[in-house]
């Protein structure tokens, strides 16, 4: 009998038309590392929650859930749960309070708590964090503390619901590495729901694709990927290296990592790339000259000697580490923050000379967290609000716009009931009604599943073709390489390098796409995206 066993489990939320989990069966052995993936709303979170009785959702449940042979209602197996949002899980004002919170709940003695904390702090190398206030920590650090405080309770099973969705790639990798350690060194059974697949597929014992509350495919990574490849649209989940291999019709063992792919690329013929590009110099739209900015005096400059120029029709991707100032720069360009020194020029006129309202009409700013965008309680009312506020007469354009974005059926929904991707599109709709010249997008791909990401890319490319300039900040190297017309790297408050994606990523060593890393050993070739690679490469027969 498997350690965790689900037999024909179905679950529906109250007042829902469709079951969230439908006739699902799944077996997990002790010590396995399982990765769940699939579109948002496919039932991953619900499935995880059903495995922890304390947070089991309310609703109608049928079938059998057994943990170590015991039904979930009478469970004694100790399960730990880490949630998606690093912020919302934190209950205490400082790190030590947070760490001992769970231990206090189960009534341990101070001595026991102290020795457990000492051990954990040592393992996480977090001694210097212990007396910090939680609100001073970065998202990645918070998520590690959340993991630590769950681990302190010594769980046998660890359930994680997209724990890295809100983290930058570096913190995410650190976090995932920690999970691998826990699995390998302590034999902890781990079930992880995740979007970031490139890194995690290699590590899992078994991966599970969920779709509409059912297990679509399940098994060893290579098998599943080959299976997905044949079943669009699920082929979107196949990471770029195996994708390339499969596109070219490779028949041997599927390469998953750069290391596995390297030897194989040596045998690939690469056609010469056509380097002539149509570059039309258009007029300058937005220009930043020698910008300095700090939030508070003596806090240190977030932006320093920053120069940036956006031309009409650009699709500019701003890359860079956490805290390099990307979000701050976008807020300055949106006119929300004022630079301490330097000039911001929009359409030939200084930004500060623009009236706030006129500026807001021309520049559409989509925040990282679109939930805070909505004042009204339905999408429809928010749109009405916008048309009233701006005195817009284009009500007839609303329906086609929503149709184009694919959210017309969500008009009467509460923004909080939408998924991340839908919410973003709803906010985008409100921005587009104002017909802005330029869109400033703050990490629009954060937390999106691959399908929604593709959908967003389609929309942005269409808008860009219609003449809307786009400046977006992102951590998503693959996305930038594929869609942007220009990439800039931010470091310590200024833009240190800037060029077209090909040149930009070929020059980088760490901060680059999987495909580029794969072809680095062939130095004369600047292949950056999967599409290019598929077009140019041929297997040698």
């Amino acid at each position, binding site marked *: 009998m498997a350690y965790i066993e689900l037999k024909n489990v179905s679950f529906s939320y109250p007042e829902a038309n469709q079951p969230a989990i439908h006739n699902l069966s799944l077996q997990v052995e002790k010590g396995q590392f399982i990765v769940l993936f699939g579109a948002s709303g496919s039932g991953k979170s619900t499935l995880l929650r059903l495995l*922890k009785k*304390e*947070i089991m959702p309310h609703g109608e449940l049928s079938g059998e859930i057994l943990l170590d042979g015991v039904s979930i209602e009478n469970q004694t197996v100790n399960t*730990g*749960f880490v*949630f998606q*949002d690093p*912020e*919302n*899980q*934190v*209950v*205490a*004002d*400082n790190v*030590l*309070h947070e760490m*001992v*919170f*769970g*231990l*206090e*709940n*189960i*009534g*341990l*003695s*101070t001595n026991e*708590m*102290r020795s457990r904390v000492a051990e954990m702090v040592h393992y996480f190398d977090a001694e210097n964090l212990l007396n910090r*206030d*939680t*609100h001073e920590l970065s998202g990645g650090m918070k998520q590690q503390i*959340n993991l630590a*405080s*769950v681990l302190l*309770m010594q769980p046998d099973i660890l359930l994680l619901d997209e724990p890295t969705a809100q983290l930058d790639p570096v913190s995410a990798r650190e976090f995932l590495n920690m999970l691998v350690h826990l699995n390998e060194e302590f034999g902890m059974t781990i079930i992880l729901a995740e979007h970031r697949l490139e890194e995690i597929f290699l590590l899992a014992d078994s991966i599970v694709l969920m779709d509409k509350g059912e297990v679509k495919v399940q098994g060893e990574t290579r098998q599943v990927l080959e299976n997905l490849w044949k079943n669009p649209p699920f082929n979107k989940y196949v990471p770029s290296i195996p994708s390339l291999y499969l596109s070219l019709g490779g028949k041997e063992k599927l390469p998953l990592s750069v290391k596995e792919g390297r030897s194989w690329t040596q045998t690939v013929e690469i056609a010469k790339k056509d380097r002539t590009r149509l570059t039309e110099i258009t007029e300058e739209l937005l220009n930043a000259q020698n910008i300095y900015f700090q939030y508070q005096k003596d806090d240190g400059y977030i932006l320093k000697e920053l120069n940036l120029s956006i031309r009409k029709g650009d699709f500019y991707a701003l890359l860079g580490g956490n805290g390099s100032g990307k979000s701050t720069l976008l*807020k300055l360009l*949106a*006119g*929300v*923050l004022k630079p301490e020194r330097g000039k911001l020029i929009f359409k030939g006129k200084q930004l500060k000379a623009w009236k*706030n*309202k006129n500026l*807001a*009409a021309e*520049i559409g*700013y989509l*925040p990282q*967290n679109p*939930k*805070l*965008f*909505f*004042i009204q*309680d339905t999408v429809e009312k928010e749109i009405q609000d*916008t048309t009233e*506020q701006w005195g817009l007469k284009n009500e007839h354009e609303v329906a086609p716009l929503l149709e184009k974005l694919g959210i017309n059926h969500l008009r009467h929904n509460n923004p*909080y009931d939408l998924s991340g991707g839908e919410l973003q599109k709803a906010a985008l709709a*409100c921005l587009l009604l104002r017909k802005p010249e330029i869109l400033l997008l703050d990490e629009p791909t954060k937390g999106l599943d691959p399908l929604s990401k593709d959908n967003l890319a389609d929309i942005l490319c269409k808008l860009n073709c219609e003449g809307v300039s786009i400046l977006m900040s992102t951590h998503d190297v693959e996305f930038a390489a594929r869609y942007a017309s220009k990439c800039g790297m931010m470091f310590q408050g200024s833009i240190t390098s800037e060029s077209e994606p090909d040149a930009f990523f070929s020059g980088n060593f760490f901060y680059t796409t999987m495909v580029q890393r794969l072809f680095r050993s062939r130095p004369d070739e600047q292949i950056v995206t999967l599409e290019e690679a598929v077009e140019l490469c041929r297997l040698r027969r």
Partner: protein
Amino acid sequence: MKSRFEEFHPLVSFIFFVLALSLFILMIHPVFLLLGLIFILMINITYRSVEQLRQWAAFMIISSLFIFLLNPLFNERGRHVLFMFHQHRITAESLIYGGMSALSLVIIMAMFVSYNKIMTPNKLLYLFSKILPQFAVLLMLTLRFIPLMKRRLDEISSIQLSKGISVLHGALNKRVKTGLLYVQVLLTYSLEEAIQTADSMKARGYGTRVRSSYEYFKFKKRDGLALVYLLLLYLLILWGRFNGFGHLTVYPIMESWQLGTGDIRIMLFYCLFLGFPLLIELGGYIRWHILN
């Protein structure tokens, strides 16, 4: 470096401050008040809270001046008329009384400055967790949420500003309305998100068993001794106070401000009480220098 007084159990520091507060209210006598002021200033200097004291200085001076000047205006009682002001008797008694009130207020406020320095939120939270554990959890959650809500409000105001909705422009009523709209967005957003916080509490077993509490502070022998010292002195002072020492009666007949033997004895206890943190630091200083 942490001072020795700060390393006492929070109960000791809390009791010290509460009892000191009551002394500043009870012992209304110019000599006592002046001594109290000196001690409180020295405590503030010892615990490096002079900077914070300076920030409060303006408020303290204004409100004590206010009290000092207004008391004679409202109050015509007393026998020693100094002068008439718009047919209003300004008496020596009322001036003295006002002066003492003002001084007492200054001392109390200055005491709170060092209190805030020594009784950190963490210590207060710890004390609460001993007597009101559930309330302490609630307080901890609130303390955790406050900086988060501030950051969210900043985020909301910049996002709404980018939509052309701002508290800085337009007519007053519109600005006030916008301000509350921000708070409303914060409310809806935070209540939506906080369900996850509750789940995270449940997932870590909150409410399943009797909760224990982590002993951030150990009650040591010296804490017990300190408490005995403080309480003993306090009871002696209180006893003296009920026998009429250490207090200057102004109305109906003003006493002489000079101190009798009884008063002086009480004053000694008073100094020993208020000087407790200073004595502790001094002891530590001496021991350090002998050991080295």
